[in-house]
């Protein structure tokens, strides 16, 4: 790993078909005169895992909103599966820090919610079988008819994963998905996430505050710096897959963590 490689803003990336492509995306909130994002370039290839790390207020949520089509960029283009993103898209799956489950719906009803909204109640009922298979995949067999009140934080996030996967999205956008969990559950859920992503060959974009989480999961880790939000550096994580929690004790892992921490310290917390 050479410095040129790690510090270039747009790395060569892995081989494969690009799924998500951002070119020169900038965002200025004219009314408040805030320059939120500055020339973001991202190229997510199929089946890859990309993490973005940065302090609060570095423009991550603006970036996510642009990627999901909730905000339009002031400059630049966003392409998903070869088509420009101009509004909410069916082929994007999203997950948040909170599970955001609806307490009046059972686990399986929560999972099929996106189908119900898009294609109606009947289509949702037909998807119950798929939803159950997904709940099985995340280890929640037998919890289909349980209400969210009776689920632990980790279990609720698994249901949220299923809800994200039910529409078979081309890309998964994860906004600090496990940061509300305790450290032990978080490590476990990270490994679960890796397993699920591999099983479905998912293309994943993760926003996180945790350097170890970013390193253990990702092929690429981008470091964002604030005001205006831009990608300061991108590190290619060259650890073999599947990753295990034991790798976290290896010197290579520690070296990546150290490298990213140093990149962060450069200006992110000024």
């Amino acid at each position, binding site marked *: 790993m050479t410095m040129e490689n790690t510090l270039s803003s747009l790395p060569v990336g892995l081989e494969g078909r690009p799924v998500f492509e951002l070119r020169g995306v900038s965002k200025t909130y004219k009314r408040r005169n805030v320059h939120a994002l500055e020339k973001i370039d991202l190229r997510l290839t199929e089946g890859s895992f990309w993490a973005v790390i940065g302090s609060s207020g570095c423009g991550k949520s603006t970036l996510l909103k642009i990627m*999901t*089509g*909730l905000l339009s960029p002031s400059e630049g283009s966003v392409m998903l599966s070869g088509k420009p993103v101009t509004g*909410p*898209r*069916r082929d*994007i799956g*999203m997950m*948040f*820090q*909170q599970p*955001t489950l*609806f*307490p*009046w719906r059972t686990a399986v009803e929560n999972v099929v*919610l*996106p189908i*119900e*909204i*898009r294609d109606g109640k009947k289509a949702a009922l037909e998807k119950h079988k798929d939803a159950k298979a997904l709940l099985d995949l995340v280890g929640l067999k037998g919890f289909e008819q349980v*209400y*969210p*009140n009776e689920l632990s934080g980790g279990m609720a996030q698994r249901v949220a994963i299923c809800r994200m996967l039910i529409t078979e999205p081309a890309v998964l956008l994860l906004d600090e998905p496990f940061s509300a969990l305790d450290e032990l559950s978080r490590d476990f859920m990270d490994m679960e996430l890796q397993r699920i992503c591999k099983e479905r060959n998912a293309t994943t974009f993760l926003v996180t505050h945790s350097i170890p989480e970013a390193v253990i999961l990702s092929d690429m880790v981008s470091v964002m710096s604030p005001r205006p939000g831009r990608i300061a550096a991108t590190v290619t994580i060259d650890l073999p897959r599947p990753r295990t929690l034991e790798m976290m004790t290896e010197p290579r892992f520690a070296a990546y963590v150290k490298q990213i921490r140093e990149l962060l310290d450069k200006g992110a917390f000024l």
Partner: protein
Amino acid sequence: MTNKQTGANEEAACETVWAAEKVSWIDRLPRAVTMFLVLLVFLSVWQIAFMLKVISHIILPSPFATIEEIVTVGLNLLTGDYMLKALWTTAQEVLIGFMIAVVLGFFLGLLVGETDFGERMVMPYLVAINAMPKVAFAPLFVSWLGFGIASKVALAAFVALFPVIVGTAAGIHAADQNARMLFRTIGASRWQTLTMLKLPTGMPHFFTGLKNAAVLAVVGAVVGEFLGGGKGFGELIRIAASMINTPRVFALIIYLSLLGLGTFGVVLWLQRKLIFWHKETITTEELFE
């Protein structure tokens, strides 16, 4: 423990036995018993005050006279005499007024909570009207709608309206940022977001409004009767008070409060049925809101 023993028993000392947590005897009694005790203390203080003639007997009757009157009025109600008719009249005013308040309040709450127009143009007027002492409108309602049931229904509805508006509007705003974003990314329509996210999320707020409205509707109806006559329970209270029949006034108020309690209870029951996911007990805050 002496010093010698301390050394020898060092290990044993580690297993310190904690003294059992002290619970006062009053907390150990069943709730029904303590509640009855409180009532007994209250009645005793009342009786003592009566015997010491702290207040004139005309104004403050003895607790026994009052209990006797409660029984008399209760028997009158049970035998379906004129008092039951009066209670039914008031009950009608309360229920119709309450239902009008719920329907109207819900739609006004929707208007204010969901639309920009409502929030910017209608809200300020609602806030202004809410700040007014609403029962002061009673004479107006009487002169507009006459001495019959209509003026009382109108006042009950008017007084009960605002908590429903506030509850509905607050409920609509209760859905959190992530849930809204999720619905937007899924591509939900405004109608879907309202019916599948905002209204269900807001149900607890809506029901808080309903519970307040249930109690206030009784206030509205009775004040209407005080000022506009009619054949209701308020009128009975007014007559008893004008004859300085204080025990009767107390007895009538007791039965009237059952009306409010009944409506409140029905709303509470409905809430527990509908919002099964929201396990809550009635808080003091909510009661006195």
